């Protein structure tokens, strides 16, 4: 479905080992470069997280000390949550922070383990593509209707766009994982 022919031009699959390792190197570079997006995005998430903390403190202090809470603090916090979560989805995937269960598969042969991994990443890619697609649709829809929260005259659609964008970056990470698994599988096979 998604997998090899694009990435492994058939001439490289022939016997020439040097040529092939060059091909692998090249793909490894591509894999690394693809990681830049999630890396940069995670920095944005850090800003959102710190801002969320600051906002809450200022809001509470303002309410009790100066009797003037921040108008729309509730809405701004929700926006910050969305930026935090969707900017970190991809990065968390690249760091393998997402939880997986780990008993049965360890007993499989190595090749089977690789295939199971491939399948899992492919499913993740599939579901995230659907979510990103639906997210973009929702964003366009809310842009047209001009949705905005009650206490704040900020439209929500940029944030929904960001959701879709963050999910697309997670797709990219799944794609990276798929490529990486294929490269490893290749390396195993050529070594044997």
């Amino acid at each position, binding site marked *: 479905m998604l997998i090899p022919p694009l990435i492994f031009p058939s001439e490289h699959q022939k016997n020439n080992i040097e040529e092939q390792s060059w091909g692998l190197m090249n793909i490894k570079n591509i894999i690394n470069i693809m990681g830049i997006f999630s890396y940069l995005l*995670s920095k944005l*998430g*850090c800003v959102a*997280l*710190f801002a*969320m*903390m*600051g*906002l*809450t*403190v200022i*809001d*509470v202090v303002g309410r*009790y000390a100066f009797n003037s809470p921040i108008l729309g603090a*509730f*809405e701004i*916090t*929700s*926006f*910050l*949550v*969305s930026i*935090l*979560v*969707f*900017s*970190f*989805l991809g*990065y*968390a995937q690249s*760091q393998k*922070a*997402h*939880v*997986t*269960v*780990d*008993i*049965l*598969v360890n007993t499989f042969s190595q090749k089977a383990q690789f295939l*199971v*991994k491939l*399948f*899992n990443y492919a*499913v*993740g890619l*599939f*579901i*995230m593509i*659907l*979510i990103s697609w*639906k*997210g973009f*649709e*929702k964003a366009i829809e809310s842009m047209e209707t001009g949705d905005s929260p009650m206490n704040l005259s900020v439209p929500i659609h940029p*944030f*929904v766009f960001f*959701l879709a964008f963050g*999910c697309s970056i997670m797709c990219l990470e799944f794609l990276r994982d798929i490529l990486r698994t294929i490269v490893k599988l290749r390396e195993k096979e050529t070594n044997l």
Partner: protein
Amino acid sequence: MSTEMTGVVGITCLFVFLAFRMHIGVALALIGFAGISYIIDLDAGLNLLGMVPWSEGSSYTLSVIPLFILMGQFAFTSGISQDIYKAVHNWMGHLRGGLAMATIVACSGFAAVCGSSLATGATMAKVAIPEMEKYGYDLSLATGCVAAGGTLGILIPPSIGFIIYGILTEESIGKLFMAGIIPGLLLAFLFILAIYIQCLFRPEMGPKAEPTTWKVKFKSLYSTWTMLSLFVLVMGGIYFGVFTPTEAAGIGAFGSFVIAVARRKLSIATFIESLLATGNMTAMIFLIIIGANIFSSFLALTGIPFMLADLIVELALPRMVILMMIILVFILLGCVMDCYAIMILMVPILFPIIKAMNFNPLWFGVIMVIVLEVGLITPPVGLNVFVIKGAVPDVPLTTIFKGVWPFLIAAVFCITIIILFPEIVMFLPSKM
């Protein structure tokens, strides 16, 4: 295929996928999506995929999760655990097994500013295990007590476990926090008792350290005041209704940020590291929450949770038998899954039963958290044990698991006591 049957197939597929190491969030989302598309139509499934990530991912209520994680991360970075440990060390070190007991007390203290068991275990392992090695402690006792003490992180508030439970069941997070305090202290006490009894029979496991003067004792106590006041500020604020849990989380995070800065432990690098670690964990939890939400829409549609509840009510088993069955399910899952994932997955399925059986949700929440704690230190997926292993790589896993056993027994005692005397849980929240 009937709707109920679809549900059963869905749940079966879920467990198969999980056993095959699929992301829990992804697996939940996939099956929820597929199930709803099958029962209603594809558009309904797709719509859910468009709706849920936004509604969950931009929720003010859920912002409490990253903020409390951040508070724990800053506390972790601040190195405050060393001060706590040193203080308790001075007070208890001269007892037989005193350093191990001190570890438990220090873990409880650190748990009061950190909501994560793994962070509590990791930070204490680095501080306490070298010290115990120095005094010739038995290695399985030294590592076991840190692994067990670390689990207090999700029982003593602030607790990520209670936050997630509160969000899932719409129980008050503040009340859950209060409910966790006394059981947390009880469990810590039972852990200490477990150490005492072990050292009574085998004194060579925990030799005494040299006693200290009263002056040193009080002086070291002084260095822990920042952390204690932060705990009092956050919990007191929630208890007296000065601020909501979300606000308390923000203030707590800010407080531990200030402490870390004041102790000159926060460089640009460690600062960013704390934020990144928090972000990763947040994304992980949110992905599970999003997936679980899609999945439970599907489950609700099949009506299985309510059928299950009806069925169990009709069986007319004694309440305790049902409770035992639920605990058993949690323990089994705890052997193979991460504790937050179990909670997010199982609570929506089991909550109708809890309601139908008239169990108090706070009481059940506390029991569940202790059971999940047990899961953190039992093989094969005792995450906390692996964290300890990471901190002291030369100690074999089997040694740590051997050291954990007495604490497991203590935890079982604790659960029994709480089941027999629900007042332990209900006392503080009822005063709110």
